[in-house]
């Protein structure tokens, strides 16, 4: 099937020719994010810094994060152990650094998988309607009746602890929000002139779906995505804090806060510092999300 030539005489409902339609269908998604606020760059810089720490963890960390030294446990910061040692004599700084390798990627994936599944299902549901739409929406109604993180506890219980279970549970429940957000947009875009024109001019459905519908509907989901990464990262840390997430001895910030709580009177930094790392990472994502939202509003 050949695409439209520039001189197609086809006219849409509102009387615009295909030339204008071609123009219109190309603009919206690009125009929407044209001005990138400074916030986004600052946020991106923070996330990049964390990514670098994760990648170069073996070079940055002074010690093996798992190496125990029970004789020298719970030591205060000194020139060898810059941030002291924990209950098992492990170097706190090295564990803080290596934990980036757990919290950064798993937090990101725990939001990315729901984003991918949700936007695909939501787009299909909104575009095709009918049975697939009814089914998707009915399932999402049921999922939304549950407090999702509590259902995650139950699912992680069923699947066993570990990163894989967390990712499966988050994806199984988290896609619902994205499906709903993008479906609303797709319903709006579906009836736009440029989509109608693309349909009547016989463009392949797959092309219309991706090029016209998806690209013009995905904006609000993209804006929600950074805050969802924050929630996913916080939840990952919370599950590990509760002893239901990443099992020991893997360094993880939430679990480090739990370990440090018993020694809060003497070694206050044990619980404080991992929390600071989480807040900083969250700030990075929030700045990106906030900036994107502002630029979408304009």
């Amino acid at each position, binding site marked *: 099937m050949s695409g439209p030539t520039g001189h197609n005489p086809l006219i849409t409902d509102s009387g615009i020719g295909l030339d204008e339609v071609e123009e219109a269908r190309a603009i919206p998604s690009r125009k929407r994010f044209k001005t990138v606020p400074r916030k986004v760059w600052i946020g991106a810089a923070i996330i990049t810094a964390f990514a670098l720490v994760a990648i170069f963890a073996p070079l940055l960390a002074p010690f093996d994060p798992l190496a125990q030294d029970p004789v020298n446990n719970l030591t205060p910061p000194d020139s060898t152990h810059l941030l002291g040692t924990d209950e098992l004599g492990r170097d706190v700084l090295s564990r803080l650094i290596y934990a980036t390798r757990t919290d950064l990627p798993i937090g990101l994936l725990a939001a990315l998988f729901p984003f991918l599944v949700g936007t695909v299902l939501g787009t299909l549901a909104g575009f095709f309607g009918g049975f697939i739409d009814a089914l998707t929406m009915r399932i999402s109604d049921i999922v939304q*009746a549950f*407090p999702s993180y509590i259902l995650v506890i139950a699912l992680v*219980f069923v699947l066993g602890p570990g990163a894989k279970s967390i990712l499966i549970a988050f994806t199984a429940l988290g896609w619902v929000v994205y499906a709903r957000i993008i479906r609303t947009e797709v319903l709006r875009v579906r009836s736009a002139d440029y989509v109608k024109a693309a349909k009547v001019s016989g463009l392949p459905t797959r092309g219309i779906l991706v090029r016209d519908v998806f690209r013009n509907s995905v904006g609000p989901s993209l804006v929600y995505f950074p805050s969802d990464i924050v929630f996913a990262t*916080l939840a990952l840390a919370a599950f590990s804090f509760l002893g239901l997430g990443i099992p020991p001895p893997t360094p993880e910030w*939430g679990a480090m806060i739990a370990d440090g709580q018993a020694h809060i009177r003497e070694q206050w930094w044990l619980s404080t510092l991992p929390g600071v790392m989480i807040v900083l990472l*969250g*700030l990075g994502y*929030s700045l990106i999300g906030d900036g994107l939202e502002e630029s979408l509003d304009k």
Partner: protein
Amino acid sequence: MLFAIVLVVFLLLQITPGDPARQVAGLRAPDEQVEKVRESLGLTDPIIVQYWRYATSALGGDLGYSYKSQQPVTEIIGERLEPTIWLMVLGTLLAILISVPLAVIAALRRDKLADHMVRGFGLVGIGMPAFWIGVMLILLVALPTGWFPVGGFGGDPLEKLRSITLPAVTLAIGSAPILIRSLRASILNILQSDYVATARSIGMPPRVVLRKFVLRNAAASTVTLLALEIGFLLFGAVVIESTFAINGVGEGIVLAARGRDMALIQGYTLMFALVVVFVYLVSDAVIAMLDPRVDIGS
């Protein structure tokens, strides 16, 4: 809807690996005895019969027995309800006390210093894990002043209030950034509405406009928001109760998950889902009371 919720909870048991009959009979029990237990538990019946039995007894208030303690699940949950109710009620009230004024100020002084400060707090605060806030409050408030216990839930009403104060503050600080963000947006919407413009143009004093139109409509948005965030607040209770060693239902579900007590997990999950459904219903009624435009029949 109720049957769908019960179905999900029931399916949790079906997809859990492991043999509940063997768990009840004991690991070293002879095979014949396990079979006898299996029959007495009704696990040999067709799955649809099992579901029907579970659903009817669950909706009748019978959630089975804990595998561990052999106590009825409803009894275990019932004993743990009180501290959680204290925490949720007090925490939500404090969250409203913090969020509503800050959101109103930020919206009225849009893009002024106050607005930037409130939004800055939101960006940092949204990344703060509730359990970390709790540990920080223990470190910075409970330990230095000695006014509040570092954990537990006390006997007489005054002691209860004292021991629930810091957890409630934690819940309030943890949920305030999300509440403020959405409230600010909805108040900005109200300020730009036609009825506010009309009220101003006929010379109504700003104070009266604020009270009669803005705050009244903002109250409805607050209730909607709190209902939408109920899952988030309940998970906050789970995390905070575990941080402060409060023997509520939140700590209960974590202990049940750690102890691999399936019947208990199912009971808790069902209870939390029912709370969510109940809160949705109540919030609809409250919104209809606050906002005469909402037709409760629809």
